[in-house]
């Protein structure tokens, strides 16, 4: 394999893209994927629980919130796995602390995704390896070999006179015979692909119709970059506003609709490209089991994670359900974290080329990876 090819296939045999979606604010896993057969759930939430009749049944025990029903076909296709009672070891119940520690992967310098990209791209990070959709590069990408906020395709150009400058650069880099020459050729090639994209109107595949909210357009951009094969290895996207202390339904319902619609369209649009793509949905913590007086829930512990993508042995809710009895609940009455988020991410990172570097990505933690891939 020559150096140029090495760049194109950023991570060994085939390029894979990891999409990390962070639900900021602490999303209520119990009302997204409800434990329909646990009476404790209905006792604790007499007014806001998802009723058995309205829920979308998954496996006889759990049911999806009806607003997430767009995810049902993906689940039934076996491409979506759900992990319940998931979260981190942090028990401060502080948004800032919990997000910070989760994105860093513990009390560690740098973000877990940043460390992963450093560890697995020995010598190969492409210029467009990692993008963040939003205003800033999130902490999880801190320390990545190349990470950029993606605002528009125009960022990836050399300005108005691009054509002449590129031709001149192609001449000079074309004369170089070493790795620098190859890197120059690869970069020019990436620029040409972006240039081509810019001139086209994007038509999602399979009749996928994304919404107009920023989450949907973010996913559309990611799908577009993945399909253009410009070397995208990681993308991050936030869906904010899950802090449902009161009027939970008004807070969460539109977000769940956006989440499910967005992911379903992304799934449809990517088609075969999903094989080399993984989407992870995570949140900093779940919410108190018991509803509060304002039809809401307060900061809790365990929540839910979603994993969608190639190779996933989906159609399952993974992890042992701990139950909601008093002896099980943690602190003020919270679903305990049975599945540490690292154990969900670990097998995914292995698939994405982490090799033997997982201990660098998640130091000071004894990994016990969940069988996401069966």
């Amino acid at each position, binding site marked *: 394999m020559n*150096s140029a090819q090495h*760049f194109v296939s950023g991570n060994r045999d085939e390029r894979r893209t990891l999409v990390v979606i962070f639900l900021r604010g602490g999303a209520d896993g119990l009302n997204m994927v409800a434990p329909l057969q646990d009476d404790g759930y209905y006792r604790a939430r007499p007014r806001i629980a998802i009723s058995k009749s309205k829920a979308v049944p998954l496996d006889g025990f759990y049911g999806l919130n009806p607003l997430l029903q767009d995810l049902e076909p993906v689940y039934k296709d076996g491409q979506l796995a759900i992990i319940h009672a998931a979260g981190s070891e942090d028990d401060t119940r502080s948004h800032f602390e919990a997000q910070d520690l989760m994105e*860093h992967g513990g*009390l*560690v*310098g*740098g*973000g877990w995704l*940043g*460390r992963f990209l*450093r560890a697995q*791209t*020995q*010598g*190969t*990070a*492409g*210029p*467009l*390896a990692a993008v963040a959709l939003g205003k800033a*590069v999130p*902490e999880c990408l*801190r*320390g*990545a*070999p*190349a*990470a*950029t906020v993606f605002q528009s395709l125009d960022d*990836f150009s*050399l*300005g108005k*006179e691009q054509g*002449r*400058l590129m*031709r*001149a*650069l192609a*001449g*000079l*880099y074309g*004369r*170089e015979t070493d*790795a*620098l*020459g*190859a*890197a*120059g050729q690869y*970069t020019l090639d*990436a*620029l040409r692909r972006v240039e081509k994209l810019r001139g086209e109107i994007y038509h999602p595949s399979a009749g996928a119709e994304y919404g107009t909210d920023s989450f949907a357009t973010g996913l559309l951009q990611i799908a577009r970059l993945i399909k253009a094969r410009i070397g995208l290895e990681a993308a991050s996207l936030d869906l904010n506003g899950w802090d449902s202390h009161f009027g939970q339904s008004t807070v969460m319902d539109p977000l769940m609709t956006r989440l499910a619609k967005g992911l379903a369209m992304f799934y449809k649009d990517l088609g075969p490209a999903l094989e080399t793509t993984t989407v992870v949905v995570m949140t900093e913590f779940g919410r108190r089991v018991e509803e509060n007086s304002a039809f809401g829930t307060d900061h809790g512990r365990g929540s839910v994670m979603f994993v969608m993508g190639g190779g996933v042995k989906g159609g399952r809710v993974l992890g042992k359900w701990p139950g909601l009895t008093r002896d099980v609940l943690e602190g003020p009455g919270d679903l305990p974290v049975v599945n540490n988020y690292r154990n969900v991410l670990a097998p995914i990172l292995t698939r994405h080329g982490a090799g033997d570097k997982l201990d*660098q990505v998640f130091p*000071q933690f004894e990994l016990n990876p969940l069988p996401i891939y069966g």
Partner: protein
Amino acid sequence: MNLPRRSFLKAGASMALLATAGCDRMPREVRLLMALNSKETGPFSSPAGSTIDPITHVLNRAAFGPRPGDYQRILALGKKSSDKPGAEMSPAQLREAAEAYLAQQLQPEKLQDDQAEYAAARFETLSEPLGELFEYQPELLQNELMRATLARAVLSERQLYEVMVQFWSDHFNIDPSKGDCKWLKVADDRDVIRKHAMGQFADMLRASALSPAMLWYLDGRVNQRENMSEKPNENYARELLELHTLGVHGGYTQKDVMEVARCLTGWTVRSTGKGPRFQIGKVEFNPAHHDFGAKEVLGQRIQATPETNSKQERQQLGSHELERVLRIAMRHPSTAQHIATKLCRHFISDTPPPTAVTAVAKAFAETDGDIRATLRALFATEDFWGSGGAKFKRPFTFVASALRATDAKTDASLEVIDFLKRMGHAPFNYPTPDGYPEQAAPWMGTLLWRWNFAVALSQNGLKGTRIKMEALQKKAGGEEGLMAHLLGRQATAEEKTAFHESGAGLALILASPGFQRC
């Protein structure tokens, strides 16, 4: 020190009066203020050779590249009064001139550095005492650290010193995003790295071991053993041997790591949220958390301290084990070899030549880690002089050298830092303790952002950064002079053609393969 704003204004008002007085009699504030506008360069000459000559070579490696006029200033150092004016210098003379420059750079304290000092003084948080740092938002501290680092690399006359600061920042890397490092890294940068960058390695190693930021970053603060059932935290001990001293294949065992960790139990740092605020960041040794049993580190015995000893003795003996361990590690032959290898990789080649490494390691060992003597030995190797243009600039060097070469007036704004972030090389953003990689390969994916930066800089598209392209070209004596100045040699026929055909000559040269090398 901070420049209080009021005295600064006063100084400005009286500047006109003082301008006629001798420079050394002026108050420092006035000198700094004057330094601001005193740096207009006149016409300058560029390298005449077709390859990198010794003068350009030292500017590339011992500095962040040439500024307009640097080449000819160094050239003058090699001229003798007997030389005919305008006569071409022999290769030996060029080398002598370059060596004279290195000799100057090896004594940074003798170089006046008003412009860089003035620029750095604007970042006021950096001179705050440890305890005061906690009054600031971490984001502000991090931004000021990054900006000051870039400003100094661009402006400082003490270029080799700044190069070494970067070298040791990588060697003793701390990512400030962990815990209290958000505040403490500012003090570490100042009191560990910058303080000892050209001093004694042993002093820097000790300062680093007791740096509050390092105690946080590598968990030294929680390394304790109140009773035998408690397991010491090995994080710092391992990195001390693997990264800071002996090197990964330096001949230590897992047992050594554990024994070093035991020696260092009991050291800790007061953290935020615990105890009185004024004590945050304070480093202390708590004998109650120390393991007083006998140990053996790299073959050397450290005796047990019996419980019959007085409290005071235990305090003293226990804390002294840190000094013992550091000395054992520091004097281990592998440490000289490891530091020498890293220095040679930095200054000579990604694959450090063994002969050079041996010579540098010898100097390190013989001088007990005198950094200047070690560098002198490195600059005396033929491997150093024969390696011109063979290295690939890391992104930080690329950006700093572009700003220097174009004589950019810059406030090192976050817009420039943002480019460094995109290239994955912003100062103090590397997550793991091994520091940013030195070799070329991990940086090959950064060309797109380098080209983008070249375009933005040459079109004056960066807020807070300004260049005067036409004036620069004029002072360089035209296009060819400009190209030779930027490339450190005469441009090739292809480069000249590309310069014209690109429609953006300056950007093209900054983006070209030649400018990526050093």
